[in-house]
């Protein structure tokens, strides 16, 4: 993992002391809320419906056991004993008090954590594949590149006042597990036909009220040119991105309005200028960063216990069927720990659970954890001989739900239970769906499916790219839920389409149930997943199933 230099430590210490003084001046009345707001947002402090919210960055979703423990300590000492992991691989505390936030940030800075780039019109905390550096199908660890981008983007003076926020994701495998195509910039580590390392760059992806899939602006960029090229992209955005209307200010709109050819031309023009000015200092930096991301010293040992337990324990077998992913090392595996126990709030973990995860990671996952954008925690390096012990430890903490990739492993934003932007709740719908399909004992039969619920058009839960997306809106003074179908968050990214009028909070779960029963009836066999069946049949049969009951009840 990346370890902070003296420069990083000084930067954070200065930032915390500046923020402490700013909070003090706000409390003593020297600063008005209008003056203070941009300062607190630069340090991840939002004001939501019931309280402040502190969003802490977990760059590219990687954290150590010690960092997870520090987060648990914050939850216990300054919050209400839990934290919420988000679709941006970050973590949120929903109840901090203003006067405590400098102490929280100071405590986090001791373990190399901060809330920088978690808000505001800047380059936000970089995201990546939660299986980075571990997955069998990965060609190269994307995290050194992600860390380089983090260092370059933090407090970059030219990009401190962009038209809007700017999100970058980096991946190193063909399977896109980081929703890369829906980011302002997507960076994929690739090789050219001669085997030279480079990047494919996509621009202009985004969710929110106007979703767009990102477009490739450069199929192959030599590795050493990355930061220059990103600067060129950001310069174009800074120059012609719209500042007259916040809803049209993201680079996706800039690209849409000017067209990919014109944007590419402008980027290449700026890039050519950059090339003449830059000495390549970043190549020394990334060499040092790469050393920090060397693979851990994998242990030897037999994996008999794994095979035996699978043979005799059906619960363990179910867990290993759903929650494991193939590791680069054949004796190792990647375990995804579900933060979606049926009926629980997706992404929430208690301080006790966070400490248990830290202990497990320290003992059995080479001291590493990951946060996935699907709001789960990943143990990236577990020897197969230790999986039984990990499973038992997870069970003790209520963390052994065998539901990864199933319908109850759904994404939900905090919605109107917390968020001041929300137009409806989303957690209650998530809980209702998970509980309902658990009661029906159907989720293993349904198989792989992606369901995502956002509580407003800003789409924090990525509902546009869900196989089944749910969007909570307000309609005539009550919560109303719209269904979209056919979205895809992977390398074949697609935006789902709304199928018709919304449903009330009481009606949305039965509507999803009708949709799922329709799929079970329509699929060729169990190997045809929901999205495969949808692509084969189109929306009509699913739409008919969803609205049938509505038609009948209206007629009656």
């Amino acid at each position, binding site marked *: 993992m990346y370890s902070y230099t003296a420069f990083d430590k000084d930067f954070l210490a200065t930032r915390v002391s500046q923020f402490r003084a700013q909070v003090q001046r706000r409390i003593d009345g020297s600063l008005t809320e209008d003056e203070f707001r941009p300062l607190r947002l630069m340090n991840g402090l939002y004001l939501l419906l019931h309280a402040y919210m502190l969003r802490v960055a977990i760059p590219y979703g990687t954290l150590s056991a010690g960092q997870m423990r520090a987060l648990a300590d914050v939850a216990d000492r300054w919050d209400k004993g839990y934290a919420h992991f988000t679709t941006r691989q970050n973590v949120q505390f929903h109840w901090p*008090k203003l*006067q405590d936030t400098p102490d929280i940030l100071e405590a986090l800075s001791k373990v190399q954590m901060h809330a920088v780039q978690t808000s505001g019109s800047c380059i936000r905390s970089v995201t990546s594949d939660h299986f980075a550096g571990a997955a069998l199908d990965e060609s190269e660890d994307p995290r050194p590149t992600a860390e380089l981008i983090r260092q370059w983007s933090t407090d970059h003076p030219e990009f401190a006042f962009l038209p809007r926020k700017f999100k970058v994701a980096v991946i190193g495998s063909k399977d896109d597990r980081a929703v890369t195509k829906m980011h302002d910039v997507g960076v994929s580590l690739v090789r050219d036909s001669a085997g030279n390392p480079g990047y494919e760059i996509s621009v202009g992806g985004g969710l929110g009220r106007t979703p767009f899939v990102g477009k490739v602006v450069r199929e192959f960029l030599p590795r050493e040119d990355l930061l220059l090229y990103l600067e060129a992209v950001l310069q174009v955005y800074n120059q012609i991105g719209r500042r007259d209307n916040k809803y049209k200010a993201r680079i996706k709109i800039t690209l849409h309005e000017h067209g990919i050819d014109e944007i590419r031309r402008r980027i290449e023009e700026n890039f050519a200028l950059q090339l003449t000015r830059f000495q390549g200092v970043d190549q020394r930096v990334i060499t040092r960063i790469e050393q920090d991301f060397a693979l851990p010293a994998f242990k030897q040992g037999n994996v008999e216990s794994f095979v035996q337990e699978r043979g005799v324990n059906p619960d363990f077998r179910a867990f290993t069927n759903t929650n494991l992913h193939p590791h680069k090392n054949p004796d190792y595996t990647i375990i995804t720990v579900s933060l979606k126990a049926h009926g629980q709030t997706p992404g929430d973990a208690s301080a006790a659970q966070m400490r248990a995860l830290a202990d497990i990671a320290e003992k059995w996952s080479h001291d590493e954890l990951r946060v996935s954008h699907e709001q789960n925690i990943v143990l990236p390096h577990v020897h197969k001989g230790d999986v039984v012990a990990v499973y038992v430890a997870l069970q003790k903490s209520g963390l052994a739900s065998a539901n990864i990739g199933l319908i109850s492993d759904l994404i939900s934003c905090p919605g*109107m*239970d917390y968020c001041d932007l929300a137009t409806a*709740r989303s957690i209650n719908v998530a809980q209702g769906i998970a509980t309902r399909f658990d009661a029906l004992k159907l989720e293993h039969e349904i198989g792989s499916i992606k369901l995502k619920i956002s509580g407003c058009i800003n789409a924090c839960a990525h509902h546009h790219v869900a196989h089944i997306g749910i969007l909570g809106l307000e309609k005539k003074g009550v919560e109303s839920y719209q269904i979209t179908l056919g979205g895809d968050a992977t390398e074949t990214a697609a935006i789902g389409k709304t199928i018709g009028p919304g449903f009330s909070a009481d009606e949305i779960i039965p509507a999803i149930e009708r949709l799922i029963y329709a799929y079970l009836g329509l699929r060729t066999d169990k190997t045809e997943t929901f999205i495969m069946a949808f692509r084969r049949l189109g929306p009509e049969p699913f739409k008919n199933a969803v609205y049938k009951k509505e038609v009948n009840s209206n007629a009656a």
Partner: protein
Amino acid sequence: MVKVTGAKLITANDLLSGEVVYLTASGAWSRSPDDAEMLHDDSTEAQRLAEVLEADKSVIGPYLAQATRRDDGAIVPSHFREVFRTTGPSNRFIGKQAA
């Protein structure tokens, strides 16, 4: 924004705790909506809000919200968003409802 009609109260978030608070007739802020001063005409509402916006540094973002006083004295906001603000999240027994 939803057009606010009928009786209103003034609500905001406390500067230090961020907690939802309501303006009372004495000018102090209360954590309970039942203590809120009910305002019944446009000019009083505008005047009270302007006073708070101008002078009160102990809260953030004061605004008017429609509400009704029930026969038992309890004050209930009209919009479901405001109702959630009187209790706390519905997924956990936490916040005002647990106080």
